[in-house]
C-alpha cells in the first residue's frame, strides 16, 4: 500500500504543493496525516501477518488432541500472549485509529491536517518501536507466557525470571504513549479545526467514533501505564504492589488492568461502528437513520464502559453485592448497543442497496456483532460464570463481538477507501470471493468454540481431553479458511496497486456524501488548505450522509 500511495502522489504532481520531501525522508520525517496514515496501515498489515500466523499455528496445534507441534508448552503460552497483544495493539488499533483515523478524520471534518503534525509523527514511531519491542520480548529467555492479561504473580520475577515480561511491559508503555499522543491530536483536531459550518452535529459518524475512542484512550491508557509501572518496579526494584508477602494484593492488578481492559475493547469496536455507519449509509444511498441517537449511543457506551470492569473478575472472590452491581451495569450496555444495530437495519430499510464488497463486510459485521452480543449478554451474568469463565465460550464471544467484528469493519474500510488512498480501485469479483471465504471461515472457526466452552473446555491450553476432539477439528478447519482468506486479501491489495483501474474521485455515487469524496483520488498531498464551507441549507444534516454538497476547496 505504501507503494501505491507513493506512486499515486508521484503521479499527482501538485504544482504549488510540490515541495514535500521525497525518498525515505518523506516517510521517516513525515508530518503529513495521509503519509502517516499509510505508514500505520502498513504497520498493521505486517503485524496482522505475524499475529495471524501465530493464531493459525495455535489452531494447527489444537486441531487434534495431544501435543503435535509445540512441544514446549511455555512457547504455546507465549504464542497466545503475543497473538492477543499483536492483534489488539498493533493490528486493530493502528489500522482503525492511526490508519483510517489519520487519513480520513481531517478529510471528513475539512481540516488541512492534524493539529500537531510533528506529534503525529512521534505517535507513529512510538507505535513502531512498541511493535519491535513486543516481537523481541518473545525471543528473550522463555518469552512472556502470561496471557495478554499479565496477571501477577505469574508475571512476577519469581515466575518469569528473565527479561521477557519487562520487554513486553516496555512495548506496551511505548505503544501506549504513542496512542495517548495520537488521542490528544485527534481530540484537538476534531474540537478546534473543523471547517466553518461543520458543526459537531453534522460531523460524519466515523469522526464521532474516533473522537469518543480518543477520549477512552485518554482515560484508560494512563491507568494501564500506571499499573504496568508498578509491575515493572515489583519485578525489578523490590516493591510489593501486587505481592501479598509484602502487603500488596494481586487483585489490585486485576482491577487496574480491567479498568483499562474493558474500555480497550470499546477502543477497538467504536471506530468499527463508525466505519460501518459510513458503509451502510453509502451503499444504501440513504442518510444514517437516527444520526443523533447513534452518536449519543456511542458516547453512552463509552461512559458505561468505565464502570463494568469487574465482570472479568467474577470468580476471583468478589462480594455478592459487587457481582450483582457489575452484572446489572454490564447488562445495561446492551441498550445503546441495541440502538446501534437497529439503526443500521433502519438505515438499510427502504434503501437502494448496492452489495459491493464493503457493504458485504458491513452486513457481515452486523451479523457477527449480534452473535457476539448475545453471548455477551450471557457472560454478563455473574451467576452463570461458574460455567463459562475462562472457557472457550469466552474465546468465541470476544472474537465474534470484538476481534473478528473489528476485522470485518477494517476489511470493509480497506475496500471502501483503497481507491482514495492509492488511486486504484480493487477488483470487485476478487473482493467478493475474499469476503465469502473469510465469512464462512470465521464462523466455522469460532461458532463451534461456543460448544467447546459450554462443554467445559478451558482456554489457553495446548492440549485438551479427547472428548473435545470433534469441534476442535472443525474449528481448525475454519482457521485454514481464514488463512486463505487473509492471503487472498494481501493479494488483492497487491493486485490493486499493481494493476487496479484508476479510481474516480467518488466511485460510490450519490450515497457517498462525506468530504473525502470531494477531493481527487488518490487524495492530493495537501487537501482542504482553504477550508470548505458547509452550510445547513446545502444538506439539512451535513456531512453525515445526508447528501451534502459542500463547496470543495479546489
Amino acid at each position, binding site marked *: 500500500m505504501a507503494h501505491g500511495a507513493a506512486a499515486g502522489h508521484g503521479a499527482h504532481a501538485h504544482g504549488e504543493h510540490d515541495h514535500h520531501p521525497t525518498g525515505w525522508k518523506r516517510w521517516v520525517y513525515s508530518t503529513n496525516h495521509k503519509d502517516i496514515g499509510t505508514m500505520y496501515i502498513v504497520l498493521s498489515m505486517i503485524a496482522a501477518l505475524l499475529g495471524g500466523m501465530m493464531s493459525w499455528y495455535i489452531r*494447527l496445534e489444537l*486441531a487434534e*488432541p495431544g501435543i*503435535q507441534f509445540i512441544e514446549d*508448552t*511455555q512457547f504455546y*503460552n507465549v504464542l497466545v500472549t503475543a497473538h492477543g497483544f499483536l492483534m489488539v495493539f498493533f493490528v486493530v488499533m493502528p489500522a482503525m485509529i492511526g490508519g483510517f483515523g489519520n487519513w480520513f478524520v481531517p478529510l471528513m471534518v475539512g481540516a488541512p491536517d492534524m493539529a500537531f503534525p510533528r506529534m503525529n509523527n512521534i505517535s507513529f514511531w512510538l507505535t513502531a518501536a512498541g511493535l519491535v519491542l513486543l516481537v523481541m520480548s518473545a525471543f528473550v529467555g522463555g518469552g512472556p507466557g502470561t496471557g495478554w492479561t499479565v496477571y501477577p*504473580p*505469574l508475571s512476577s520475577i519469581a*515466575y518469569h525470571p528473565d527479561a521477557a515480561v519487562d520487554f513486553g511491559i516496555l512495548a506496551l508503555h511505548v505503544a501506549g504513549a504513542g496512542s495517548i499522543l495520537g488521542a490528544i491530536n485527534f481530540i484537538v483536531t476534531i474540537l478546534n479545526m473543523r471547517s466553518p459550518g461543520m458543526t459537531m452535529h453534522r460531523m460524519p459518524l466515523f469522526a464521532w467514533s474516533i473522537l469518543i475512542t480518543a477520549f477512552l484512550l485518554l482515560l484508560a491508557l494512563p491507568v494501564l501505564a500506571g499499573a504496568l509501572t508498578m509491575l515493572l518496579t515489583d519485578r525489578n526494584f523490590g516493591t510489593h504492589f501486587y505481592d*501479598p508477602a509484602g502487603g500488596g494484593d494481586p487483585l489490585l492488578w486485576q482491577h487496574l488492568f480491567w479498568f483499562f481492559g474493558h474500555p480497550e475493547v470499546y477502543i477497538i469496536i467504536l471506530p468499527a461502528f463508525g466505519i460501518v455507519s459510513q458503509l451502510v449509509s453509502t451503499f444504501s444511498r*440513504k442518510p444514517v*437513520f*437516527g*444520526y443523533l441517537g447513534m452518536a449519543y449511543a456511542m458516547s453512552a457506551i463509552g461512559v458505561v464502559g468505565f464502570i463494568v470492569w469487574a465482570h472479568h473478575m467474577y*470468580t476471583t*472472590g468478589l462480594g455478592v453485592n459487587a457481582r450483582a452491581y457489575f*452484572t*446489572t451495569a454490564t*447488562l*445495561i450496555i*446492551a*441498550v445503546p448497543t*441495541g440502538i446501534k444495530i*437497529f439503526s443500521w*437495519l433502519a438505515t*438499510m430499510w*427502504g*434503501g*437502494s*442497496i*448496492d*452489495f459491493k464488497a464493503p457493504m458485504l463486510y458491513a452486513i457481515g459485521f*452486523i451479523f457477527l456483532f*449480534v452473535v457476539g452480543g*448475545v453471548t455477551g*449478554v*450471557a457472560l454478563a*451474568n455473574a*451467576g*452463570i*460464570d*461458574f*460455567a463459562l*469463565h475462562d472457557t472457550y465460550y469466552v474465546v468465541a464471544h470476544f472474537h465474534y463481538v470484538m476481534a473478528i467484528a473489528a476485522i470485518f469493519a477494517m476489511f470493509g474500510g480497506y475496500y471502501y477507501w483503497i481507491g482514495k488512498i492509492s488511486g486504484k480501485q480493487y477488483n470487485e469479483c476478487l473482493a467478493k470471493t475474499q469476503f465469502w471465504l473469510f465469512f464462512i471461515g470465521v464462523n466455522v472457526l469460532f461458532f463451534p468454540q461456543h*460448544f467447546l466452552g*459450554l*462443554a*467445559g473446555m*478451558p482456554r*489457553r491450553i*495446548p*492440549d485438551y*481431553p*479427547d*472428548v473435545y*476432539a*470433534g469441534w476442535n*477439528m472443525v474449528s*481448525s478447519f475454519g482457521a485454514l479458511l481464514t488463512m486463505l482468506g487473509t492471503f487472498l486479501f494481501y493479494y488483492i491489495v497487491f493486485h490493486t496497486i499493481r494493476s487496479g483501474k484508476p479510481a474516480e474521485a467518488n466511485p460510490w455515487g450519490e450515497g457517498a456524501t462525506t468530504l473525502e469524496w470531494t477531493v481527487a483520488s488518490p487524495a492530493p498531498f495537501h487537501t482542504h488548505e482553504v477550508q470548505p464551507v458547509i452550510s445547513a441549507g446545502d444538506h439539512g444534516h451535513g456531512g453525515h450522509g445526508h447528501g451534502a454538497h459542500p463547496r470543495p476547496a479546489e
Partner: protein
Amino acid sequence: MTTRILRSLIGGSLTGVGAVVAAGAAHASGMATPWQINLQDAASPVMERVHGFHNMLLVIQISIVVLVLGVLAYIIVRFNAKRNPDPSRTAHNTLLEIVWTAVPIVILVIIAIPSLKLLYFSDRAQDPDMTLKVTAHQWYWSYTYPDHGDFAFDSLPVAAEVLEAGQPRLLTVDNPIVLPVDTTIQVLVTTDDVIHNFAVPSLGLKTDATPGRVNETWVRISKEGTYYGMCSELCGVNHYYMPIQVKAVSKERFAAWTQEAKEKFAARPAPAVAAAPAQSIQ
C-alpha cells in the same frame, strides 16, 4: 511437515474421534461427551440452576439472532438496488426509536431477575456439614480434610502412558478427591504460588485460588459418580495438565474412606500446645 499438517487438518483425527466415542461412553456423567454442544450434566443445586437459567438465555439469544437475521434477509431481498431503485429519505422515526430502546430494557429485566436470584442463591451462606480445603500448586492440587483428622494429600495427574482403560487422558489423577453425596460441603480454595482456579463443571464449582487469600464456595453433590475438572486460570507451563477428579460416594463409604485415608496419608502432627479452650474475655 506438510504431510503432517495435511493429515492433522484433514483426516488424521477421525480415528482419534472414534476412539474417544468408545472411551467416552464409560463416563457418561461427570465429563463432556464427544460433539457435546451444551453444558455438562448437573450434579449440584447451583449447577442445576445454571442449567435452568442458561436454557432461558438460549431461547432469548436464539430469538434475537433469528429476528435480526430475518430482518437482514428481508432487507437484502426487498431493498436491493434492482428492486428498489429509489431510496427513501427517512432518517427519523421517534416512535420506532423509543420502542427499540424500551423493548431491550424489558428483555434485560427479564434476564436480570432470575440472574440475580441465581447469583444470590449460589452465594447464600450454607451451614456446612464438612470442609474441603483445596491448595493449588504449580502444577498439582493438594487437598485437606480438616474435619476428619486433618489429613492432607497431593493429587497429581496420571501420565497418558500409564492410564488404564476408561481413564480419560488429562483428567485422571492418582489421588482423587473423595466426597460424600447429599452433604453440604464448604470448599476453601487457596494457592501456594500463582493464581489457579478450582473448577468442576458438573458441580458448578469455579473459584480462583489467589495467593494470600482464601476463597470460599460450597457444593452439595446430588449423585454418586466421578466428576472431572481442569485448572481454569493460566498458571504457567503445565496449566493444561493439572486435572481435578472428584469421586462422590455414599456417606457410609465416605466414612470408611476417611478411616483408610487417615492412615494412608498420615495425619499431620497435632499441635504441641494442648488445645486450650477458647476464652471469653468479657
